[in-house]
């Protein structure tokens, strides 16, 4: 009996205490708000951010016009990583350009290779063997997972959640090791060829991939438990850098940045290539067009990618992994040593490269960052007359000022991150 009474008294005291605190808080808040009107003076000033800044993922300079902590205008200054890839490409044969594309977006080199060889194949009207198409799709989706894992780790790191980085890089490492087995390199892969791929997938890699996709779903849940209910993550991503679908289309955004605003635009579905029309998968779409939705889309895309990889592995047909049109692809080394004709083909391919018919074409590919397009003008020689790279990071950067206006200075870092920007691709 006595204890119950004591309990009652304690509860009452607790309630009173809470009420007292509430009142103090509200008066404090009121005081701060009043103070803002009169005593605290804000001032406009220009702030230079970068080009050396850890969160810009490269070298990007932004001139911020600030009103207190609010961004009034953000002018990106690009070009610190401009290497003249388009100019160099005019002096290289098509096969020599493939390693240049690795260096564009060094986080997802395979996807760039794919975009380039597809454009050349469109120019040549070349048919690729079925097994090659499947291998290309598998490797491109592996690259998408790697890219999104990298993005998730660094985006969380920028916001201050360090541990996600360690988890995502653990899985990324597994896939990079597989890349090393497939083509001998981890980052600058140079694996795709016009007419197929450079090497076959062997059984070891296929087994390891099966094992990876089997265990990947629980790993995604792991990342989600770290972030999904994390109050800081939610506060820093929800309702930040909002862009409507209409504006996003008008700015030419692509990839998760566009789909986060609910626009159904994915070239893998619209203009199917590779084996994308032979497997079941869906395009995740956002609703609010904020950073959180774009995060959610990338998580969902990783799930879809892993499902695409599994289906492609199930259906992987037998056959050659490279076209047998030896005007384009190298003849087998064994025959080169014994056959004059073959030796001539080999020699000409190395010295002059294969010739493309005169004309021009544009071919866009859905890379992890968005639509990477190659516009190639050919004059009939072995080198492109003009090659324009439509880089998703560059076009997305065009909307940066629009999306950053009105947000706080601390949000700048998350807004960079949400584009998944890589300056090597942006400046080319």
């Amino acid at each position, binding site marked *: 009996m006595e204890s119950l009474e004591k309990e009652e008294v304690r509860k009452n005291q607790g309630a009173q205490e809470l009420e007292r605190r509430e009142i103090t808080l509200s008066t404090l808040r009121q005081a701060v708000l009043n103070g803002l009107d009169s005593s605290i003076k804000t001032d406009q000033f220009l702030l230079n951010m970068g080009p050396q800044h850890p969160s810009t993922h490269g070298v990007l300079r932004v001139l911020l016009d600030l009103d207190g902590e609010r961004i009034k205008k953000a002018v990106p200054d*690009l*070009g610190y990583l*401009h290497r*003249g890839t*388009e*100019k*160099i490409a*005019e*002096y290289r044969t098509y096969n020599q350009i493939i390693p240049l594309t690795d260096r564009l977006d060094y986080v997802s080199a395979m996807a760039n290779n794919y975009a380039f060889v597809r454009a050349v194949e*469109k*120019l040549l*009207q070349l048919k690729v063997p079925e097994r090659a198409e499947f291998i290309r799709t598998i490797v491109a989706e592996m690259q998408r997972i790697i890219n999104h894992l990298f993005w998730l780790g660094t985006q969380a790191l920028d916001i201050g959640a360090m541990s996600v980085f360690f988890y995502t890089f653990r899985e990324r490492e597994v896939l990079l090791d597989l890349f090393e087995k497939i083509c001998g390199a981890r980052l600058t892969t140079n694996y795709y060829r016009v007419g197929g791929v450079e090497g076959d997938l062997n059984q070891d890699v296929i087994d390891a991939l099966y094992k990876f996709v089997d265990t990947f779903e629980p790993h995604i849940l792991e990342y989600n438990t770290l972030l999904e209910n994390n109050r800081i993550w939610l506060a820093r991503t929800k309702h930040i850098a909002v862009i409507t679908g209409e*504006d996003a*289309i*008008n*700015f*030419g*955004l692509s990839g998760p940045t566009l789909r986060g605003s609910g*626009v*159904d*635009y994915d070239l893998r579905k*619209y203009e199917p290539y590779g084996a994308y029309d032979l497997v079941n998968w869906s395009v995740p779409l956002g609703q609010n067009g904020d950073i959180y939705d774009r995060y959610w889309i990338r998580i969902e895309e990783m799930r879809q990618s892993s499902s695409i990889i599994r289906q492609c592995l199930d259906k992987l047909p037998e056959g050659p992994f490279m076209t047998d049109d030896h005007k384009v692809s190298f003849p087998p080394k064994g025959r080169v040593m014994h056959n004059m004709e073959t030796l001539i083909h080999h020699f000409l391919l190395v010295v002059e490269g294969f010739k493309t018919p005169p*004309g*021009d*074409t*544009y071919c*866009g590919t859905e890379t992890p960052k968005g*639509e990477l*397009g190659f*516009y190639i*003008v050919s004059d009939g020689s072995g080198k492109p*007359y*003009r090659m*324009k790279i*439509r880089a998703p990071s*560059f*076009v997305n*950067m*065009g*909307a940066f000022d*629009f999306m950053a206006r009105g947000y706080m200075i601390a949000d700048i870092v998350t807004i960079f991150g949400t584009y998944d920007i890589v300056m090597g691709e942006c*400046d*080319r």
Partner: protein
Amino acid sequence: MHPVAESLRRKFPETVIGSREALGDLTIYLRELGATDVFRALHDDEEFRYDYIVDVTSVDYPMDAERFEVVYIFYSIPRRHRIIVKIRVPESHPVVDSIVSIWRGAEFMEREVYDMMGIQFRGHPDLRRILMPDDYDEGYPLRKDFPLVGKGWRDDFSFVPKYHENLPPLPEGRA
């Protein structure tokens, strides 16, 4: 002829000077004068609805009378169709109208074309160099008469070897 090309020709007989279908792409050739009306129609008209801007780029043909070709690529998300539009301009007056007021994404793309090829865009809100330094005045890098090794400050650096001067003597017996 492609229905889009046909309809454009009927609506703008003065400006549309040709069309071509190759490799699955539809290309429209325009005259510079009055091109803005065509672009506005491509964006707004219900039968075209090219709402998504893919790219603006340029090609240099130094031997031609109208040296530069400005290439626009648009995509229609509702109709799922891509179109390439080309305008030729001469070297003496390399100016076209800006389309930033129709597709805002064109702002950076037009700046890049100006930076790389030296084509001016009339009515562009902020036409500055974008990839090259702001004060670079050695020309436009993607023109065909610009050397691959580059031009500019690099030539003044004493530690950069000058490949065409002071070549080391060849060994004995080599031509």
